C-alpha cells in the first residue's frame, strides 16, 4: 500500500554556536513521516531527538536542509510562516505540561481553540480526556496526570495534522503514564492524526507503527512495527 507522506525532512542539520565551540545536534538527518502513523523516536539524552522534534514542530529552524510539510517548505518563510504552521498544523504535548497557571482547565483549552477556524467541540474533547468534571479547576489544583490530559486536550482541540509529544510520561508515575499513552494511541486511531512521540524509554517503542532510533545526531535505525501492542501491555 502506498503511504502518503505528511512531512519530509531532507538532510537537516542543526548546529548550535556555543561561542568557542560548535555543537552539531543534528547531522544531515533525513526522514519521511507518513500521514496517520504513530512514530516513536527513541534515544538517550543528547542524541538529538528533542532538536529533531523542535524542528518538526516549527519551534526551531535547521541550520541547513529542508523541512517540507505537505507540499510547503516551512523552512523558507521565516517566523510568520512558522507561527502559522504551529498554529494550524501542530499540537504539542510536553514533559512538564506547560499549562497557563492563571487559566482553568477549560480556559486553557479554550485559549487554543480560539486560534483556529474549525476547532473541535470543547466539551467532547474534555470528555475524551476524561476531565469534564474537573474543567473548572486550575493547574495548581490538579495532579500531574490531570495536567497532562489537559495539555493533550489543548493540543488536539485545534484538530492538528501532527501531534508532537516530548517525553509526555517523563514526569508521571507508571500507572498514569500508561493511561496517557493509551489516550495518545486512541487519538491517533480515532482521529487519524499523526502522532510523533519522543522518549528515552525503549519499552514505549512497542506501541508505535514505526520506531526511529537516534544516537549522536543521527537516525541510526528505523524499524517497522507490523503489530504494535496496546499501551496497556507495555511494561517498564
Amino acid at each position, binding site marked *: 500500500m502506498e503511504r502518503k507522506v505528511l512531512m519530509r525532512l531532507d538532510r537537516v542539520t542543526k548546529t548550535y554556536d556555543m561561542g568557542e565551540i560548535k555543537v552539531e545536534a543534528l547531522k544531515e538527518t533525513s526522514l519521511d513521516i507518513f500521514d496517520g502513523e504513530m512514530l516513536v523516536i527513541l534515544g538517550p539524552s543528547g542524541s538529538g531527538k*528533542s532538536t529533531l522534534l*523542535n524542528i518538526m*514542530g516549527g*519551534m*526551531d529552524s535547521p541550520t541547513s536542509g529542508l523541512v517540507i510539510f505537505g507540499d510547503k517548505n516551512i523552512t523558507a518563510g521565516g*517566523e*510568520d510562516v512558522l*507561527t*502559522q504552521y*504551529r*498554529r*494550524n498544523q*501542530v499540537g*504539542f504535548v*510536553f514533559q*512538564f505540561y*506547560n*499549562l*497557563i*497557571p*492563571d*487559566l482553568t482547565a477549560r*480556559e*486553557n483549552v*479554550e*485559549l*487554543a481553540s*480560539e*486560534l*483556529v477556524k474549525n476547532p473541535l467541540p470543547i466539551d467532547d474533547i474534555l470528555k475524551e480526556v476524561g476531565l469534564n468534571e474537573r474543567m473548572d479547576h*486550575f*493547574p*495548581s489544583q490538579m495532579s500531574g496526570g490531570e495536567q497532562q490530559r489537559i495539555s493533550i486536550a*489543548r493540543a488536539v482541540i*485545534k484538530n492538528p495534522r501532527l501531534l508532537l509529544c516530548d517525553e509526555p510520561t517523563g514526569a508521571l508515575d507508571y500507572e498514569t503514564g500508561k493511561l496517557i499513552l493509551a489516550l495518545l494511541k486512541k487519538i491517533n486511531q480515532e482521529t487519524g492524526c499523526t502522532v510523533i512521540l519522543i522518549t528515552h524509554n525503549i519499552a514505549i517503542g512497542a506501541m508505535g507503527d514505526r520506531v526511529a532510533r537516534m544516537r549522536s545526531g543521527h537516525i541510526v535505525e528505523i524499524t517497522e512495527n507490523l503489530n504494535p501492542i496496546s499501551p496497556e501491555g507495555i511494561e517498564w
Partner: protein
Amino acid sequence: MVMGILVRKLGHFIRRNLGQFLAATAVVIGGIMVYISMNTAYYNLSQSQSLFYKENNFADYYLQVVKAPEEVVRQISAVEGVKQVTGRIQKDLAIFKPNDERATARLVSFSLPMDNELNRITLDQGRLFASTQGGSYVETVVDPQFAPANHLNWGDSIGVVVDGKEKLLTIVGSASSPEFIYPIKDTSNILPDPLNFGIFMVEQQQAQQLLGMQGQINQILLEFTPGADQQQVVAGVEEILRSYGVVASYGRKYQISHAVLQGKLDGIGSVAIYLPVIFLAIAAGIQMIILRRMIRIQRTQIGVMKALGYDNLQIIFHYTCYAWAVSILGAIVGIILGTILAGGISELFAQYFNLPGGLKTFDIRTIQNGLVLSVVIGTFAGIAGSLGVLRIQPAESMRPEPPPSTGQSFLEKWSFLWSRLSPQWKMTWRNIGRNRGRFVVTMSGVIFAVCLLIMAFFYNDVVDYMLKKFFYEGETYNITVRFNTLINDNELININHLDGVQKIEPFIEMPVKIYFRDRSADEVLLAYPEDMTMKKLQDESGKLIKVPSDGIVINQRTAEKLGIKVGDKVEVETMLPYGPTHKDTIQIVGDTQQLFGGGSYINLDRANRLLQESHAVSGAMLNVDTGKEAAVEEQLNKMLAIASVTDREKEIRNFNESLGVVTSFVSILVLFAILLGFAIVYNASVINFAERRRELASLRVIGFTIGEISSLIFKENLVLMIFGIMLGMPVGKWLVKSYVESVSTDQFSLPVVIYPTTYLFAAIGGIIFVIVAHRFAVKGIKDLDMVSALKSTD
C-alpha cells in the same frame, strides 16, 4: 572575602537585569535631582534674600504719616525696643514721560551717608546721587527695571508733576533695595510694570526741597531690638506720631515686595519637599518589587547559602546591597544632575524674583541630606523587600517551587461579566490578582505621573484663566485714569468730550483703616456706582459680586485678620494722603475673595458720604472707539490732574511677557512625569515578562504570534493605563488644590482651574509613556527562546 563573592554575585545579577536596575535608578535620580535642584535653588534664594536684607538693613516695620518734622526720629529712637529708626519721604508722583504717556514715580528719599540708616540701597549701575546738588538740578537713581524698560540712559531727564508743575529729575544710575525687589505699586497690581511704575531714589534734602517739605518726613522705618514686644513698641511709636496723622502702619510681613517674594519662595520650598518624597517612595516601591522577585528566583541559591552556613542577616544584607546600589548610584547621578540644574533654576528664579544672582550652585548640606534621604529610603526598601529570605527553608528550597497559586480576581464574583471575558483577559485579571502589591505600587506610579502632568498643564491653565477673567471677561473698558486727588465728577465731562470716548464710569479707590473691637487693619476701599457696566466684580470662583447699596462687601482675608463676620459693624477711617481724615461706622453686608490683590467693595455714594463729599471720584474707566485709543491716551496724558493712565492692552502684553518662567517650569515637570511614568511601567512590564516567559513560550508554541503575545502583556498595562489615568485625574486635582493652598498668601492666591484639555493632555501623556515603556520592555519577545523556556522547570 565571603562578602566579596556575594558582591560579585550581585554584580552579575545587575548586569543581567540592567534595564530594571536602570529603571529603578532613574526614578531615584529623578527624586534626588528634584530634591537637590529645588532645595539648592530654595537655599540659594533664601540666602540671597536674607543676605540682601541684612546688607541693606531691611526694616522690620513701616509707618506712614501725612507729614511730620524730622525731629520725631530722635523721639522714636528713645522708645524702648527700637533698635534703629529712619525717617524719610515716600510719595507717589505722576511722571511725564518723553512720549507723553503717564506713569507713576514712587519718590523715596535717602539721607547720605546711608551707613546707619534702614533700607539702604545697593548701586546696580551708573552712580549714586550726589550729596550736594545745586539749584533745581535733582539727581535720581531708579530701580533696575525702569531705565531699560523706558529706554532711558544715565544723564537723561524725566519730568514729574509736583503740585501741578513739572519738575525735572536727572537719572544717574540704578539701584536695588529689599523693599523694591518687586517694584509693585499696590496690592491691586499683580506684577511689576516698569513701563508705568518706577522707584525714584533721591537725596533727602533734595526731596524735601522738591516737594516743599523742608525739614519734614512722611515715613518712619523701624528695626526692633531682638526680643522686644513689637506690639508695645509700635503702640509707643504710633502714640508719638498720632498728631501727625498715621496713614498706614504695617510690619515687614505686609511690605508688598517682601510678601510677594516670600510667597513665591515658600512655594518653591513646599515643592522642594513633597515632590522628591513622592518620587523616592515610588522608587522604594520599585526596589521592593525587584528584590521580592529576585528572592523568588534565587530561592534555591538562598537555600544553598543557608545550607552552607550563612545566617539570615548576612543574606538580607546581601539583598539590601542591591537597594543600596540603586540608591547610591541614583543619589550620585541625581546630585550631579541636580547641582547642574540648580545653577540654571537658581539663576532663572533669581532673575524672576529680581534677587541678586551670582549664587553658588551647591549647598553641601542639601547634598548630604539628599544622599542620606536616598540611602535611608533605599535601606528601608532593601530590608522590607528581602524579608522573604526568612521564610526559606534550605531543604525545601532545593525542590522546585510548587506552581504559583492562582490569583483570584475580584471580577470573578460577577459571573455575568466574567464569563464574557476572553481567556487572555482572564489571565490578565488573575495575574493582577496574584501580584496585588506590585500592581498597587505600579499603579501609584502611573497615578502620580498623571498627577504631575496635570500639575504641569495646570500652570498654563491658571495663567490663561486669570488672563481671561481678569482682563477680558470682567472688564470691558479700554483705559483707566486715576487722578492726583479727589475731583468732582463734573470734571469728567472734559474727558467725556475727548474725541473717541464713548462712555465713562467713575470710581474711588481709597486707603482706609478698619477698626473692629481691639483690632485694626489697613484696607483699600473700592467704590463703584451700583449701575456700573464696564467692570464685573467677581470672586475667586467667578461668581458676580454686586455693589451693595449700603455697607461694605469685605475682603475675606481682611475679615479673617480682624475676626469680622457678615452683619458686624466696623469703624472705617479714611487714609487718603491728602485732605482731612474721616471716620464713620459701616455695616459689613457681605464677604468675598478675589483672584488677585485685595480690596473691599462699597457703593460710590456711600463712599462719598464717608468722605463727607457728594460727587467726588478718584478715577474713571473709559470706553474708547476702536482705533482711537492712542489718540485718547495722548490727550489724557496732557491733562495735569491725572496721575496715571493705564491701557488694558498694554497690561495684558506685560502680563504675558513675564510668564516665560512658567513655560520652563512646565517643561521640567512634564519631563519628570514622563521619566517617572516610563520607568515604573517599564519595570513592571519587564518583571511581568520575565516571570511569564515559560507561559508565553507555551503560547508561542501553540501558535500565538509575537503581536498576540505583546498584546497579552499589554492588556495588563492597559488596565494600569486606564485606571491610572482615571484615578490620576481626581488625585491630580487634589494635588493641585493642596499645592495652591500651600503657596497662597495674603496678597496672592491662585484659583484651582483645570481645563478639560489639561485632563486630555495628561491622559495622552499617560497613554504615550505606557505604550513606549511597554514597547521597550517587550523588545525581548521576538528572541523568546521557546525551546529553552520550556525545558527549564523553574
